[in-house]
């Protein structure tokens, strides 16, 4: 069983393309292998005749396990007595360590610290990137280029399913879509997501925002949304609950010193999460300006690597599109993601009377490896308290 990726440990025989007795050319595809990531037609290492298929279609075996026996052309294997080992036959099982170990390039060269870090941040397999450096070394610039353009996939590998049913349209994956898919799957598979929600009375906050809106627009030429208020409160709450601003690692939980808030930002056909760094040191106005600059760059496709890396917590303004409830997927490496849902006027009970208040749901997905429900609820309650305390008397 050939190894179809750095982290792949087993493969499934999807389909035999050759049957025993059929001849096969060297490099001719003779079996289709699928893994959790890709499907690939595997080329024959030798020219010859298929003698035996060891693994049945649909069966999964570890990488390195024999899957078939091919009699090499020119050898008189068929005439060999049954009790003798088929000496000239070639057992198909490319070595598991075919030059791709531990992030090394195909040539076995080491990767630089910057390449290793960037590859991890962008979830790129270094082995799939063709290097432009000396002796084909993969450079940091190559990784950045791969993160923003089409990755170079090995020739025999293609993404499953190979084709759409008749009449359906198959939209080819853009590199961005591929990256989103990979990271979302990675997040869901590694971080056990738990979910919780509070409803927040933002009547006073809304009034404050409306009171500041015109002056802000005159001064900065931009619309003052609820997002920077929300981010400010989130940063404060994260300081009060540092475990929410953390990452899970096998050797411990890394609690981050700074609050770097990612903003889930929809762009044309894609999604990026630019990061406002050191949000805990910024005022509401400071956050607003930083976020606006990032969102603007995101929409024009001008973000650079640094804009996108280093996030410690993410916020998502789902409410802008009218959503009142959502269960977001964590950005890999972060312990929490909070959404602000649509602000809607609803009748609520205040002082045993029914009042009309502007209400907003705040939803939180959390990495249950890092924090438990009680702490997350405490964080949300703190956030709710801060948001409800915000009103026209505050300072931007």
């Amino acid at each position, binding site marked *: 069983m050939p190894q179809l990726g750095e982290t792949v440990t087993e493969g499934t025989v999807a389909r035999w393309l050759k049957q025993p007795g059929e001849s096969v050319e060297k490099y001719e595809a003779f079996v289709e292998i699928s893994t959790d990531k890709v499907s690939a037609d595997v080329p024959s290492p030798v020219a010859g005749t298929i003698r035996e298929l060891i693994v049945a279609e649909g069966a999964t075996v570890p990488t390195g396990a024999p899957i078939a026996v091919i009699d090499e052309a020119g050898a008189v294997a068929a005439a060999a007595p049954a009790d003798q080992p088929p000496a000239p036959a070639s057992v198909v099982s490319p070595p598991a360590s075919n030059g791709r170990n531990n992030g090394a390039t195909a040539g076995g060269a080491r990767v*630089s*610290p*910057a*390449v*290793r*870090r960037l590859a991890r941040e962008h979830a790129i397999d270094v082995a799939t990137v063709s290097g432009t*450096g*000396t002796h084909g*070394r993969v*450079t*940091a*610039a190559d990784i950045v280029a791969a993160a923003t353009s089409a990755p170079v996939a090995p020739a025999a590998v293609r993404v499953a399913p190979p084709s759409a049913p008749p009449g359906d349209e198959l939209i080819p994956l853009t590199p961005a879509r591929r990256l989103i898919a990979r990271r979302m799957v990675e997040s869901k598979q590694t971080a056990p997501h738990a979910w919780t929600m509070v409803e927040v009375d933002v009547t006073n906050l809304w009034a404050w925002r409306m009171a500041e809106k015109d002056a802000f627009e005159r001064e900065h030429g931009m619309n003052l949304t609820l997002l920077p208020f929300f981010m400010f409160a989130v940063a404060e709450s994260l300081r009060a609950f540092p475990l929410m601003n953390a990452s899970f690692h096998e050797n411990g939980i890394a609690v981050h010193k700074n609050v770097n808030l990612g903003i889930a930002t929809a762009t044309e056909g894609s999604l990026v999460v630019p990061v406002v760094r050191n949000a805990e040191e910024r005022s509401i106005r400071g956050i607003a300006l930083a976020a606006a600059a990032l969102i603007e760059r995101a929409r024009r496709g001008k973000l650079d690597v640094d804009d996108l890396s280093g996030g410690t917590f993410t916020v998502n303004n789902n409410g802008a599109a009218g959503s009142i409830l959502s269960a977001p997927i964590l950005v890999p490496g972060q312990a929490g993601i909070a959404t602000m849902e649509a602000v809607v006027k609803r009748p609520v009970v205040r002082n045993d009377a029914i009042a009309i208040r502007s209400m907003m749901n705040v939803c939180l997905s959390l990495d249950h490896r890092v924090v438990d429900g009680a702490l997350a609820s405490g964080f949300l309650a703190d956030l709710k308290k801060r948001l409800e305390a915000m009103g026209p008397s505050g300072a931007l």
Partner: protein
Amino acid sequence: MVPERALENRAQANGLIASSDGGPHEVGGAQPGAERLSNLEAVRMALHEAMVADERVLIVGEDVGKRGNVFLITTGFLEEFGPKRVVDMPLAEASIVGIAVGMAMQGLRPIAEIQFADFIYPAFNQIVGEAAKTRYRSNGDYSCPMVIRTPYGGGVHGALSHSVSIEALFYHVPGLKIVAPSTPRDIKGLLTAAIEDPDPVLFLEHKKTYRLIKGEVPEGHFTIPIGKADVKKSGTQATVVSYGYNLHQALEAAAQLETEGISVEVIDLRSIRPMDKTAILTSVRKTRKLLIVHEDNKFGGIGAEISAMVAEEALFDLDAPIHRLCGPDVPAMGYARPLEDAFMISTERMRAEMQKLVQF
């Protein structure tokens, strides 16, 4: 020390500096209210303006008065400011610095001149043991506001005792600031800042650049903060940190590479201590590659400290091993041209190293 030394020095330095290979390098564009000066003239302008502005400022050293310094930097100073403020000293460097330390502690602002950096060793104890420690030892009761000026560096056919770089011998010492600017403007701004600084500053002037480098210098009082590097050329694919004569070669090499589409950022360190870590780290985080160029010996040189600092702070931004291009680890620069050439770093070598690093 031979008594004729100073006179020899003067003849040698004047003759050799004037015959430096290549024409003057122009630095900076024309500015209103600015004068086009050589590095040497920039030193003179800063000294003169400081002497005029503050009567506590005085110059002590060998041949600084009657001879007007071996490079003719202080010509006319003795006549203008008198023998109490322009003091000719015997060939005794320990005394020159030691006396200046006492003057500084008592409220004067001495500028001690060591005629060539090669002669600074007798003053080592006064600089390291006294000047650098005065503030600490007196628990802040005394400070030592003095400047020790000295021409350093080779490439002028100066042989064993007129070519040395000394910065690494002193940069290990807390309490001592070291400045090594490379352009006329930086020289004036930093020498003025050094004279006004409340603590001792070792001010290094690369003698090959004295007449070779020219550029605009604003008239009147201005300072450039000690401890701030300067991005002399911005670029994206590699960072080169240098200072002194090498800086100008690095800029030349980078300019040549620019025409081939290779973009190198060149940082002029300007201050060796305090070192501008932020400027270096910011640049390295951007370009991910670092080349350090200095004429001083490689082992334990300034480049070693920069390398260690970058490795500590920015390892995961590095896309190539840090590279140092430095003087060889031999005891001195030879007199014979091939030996001198072998010690000095050519612009071609810098260019080749930059190219290799960008391509790595």
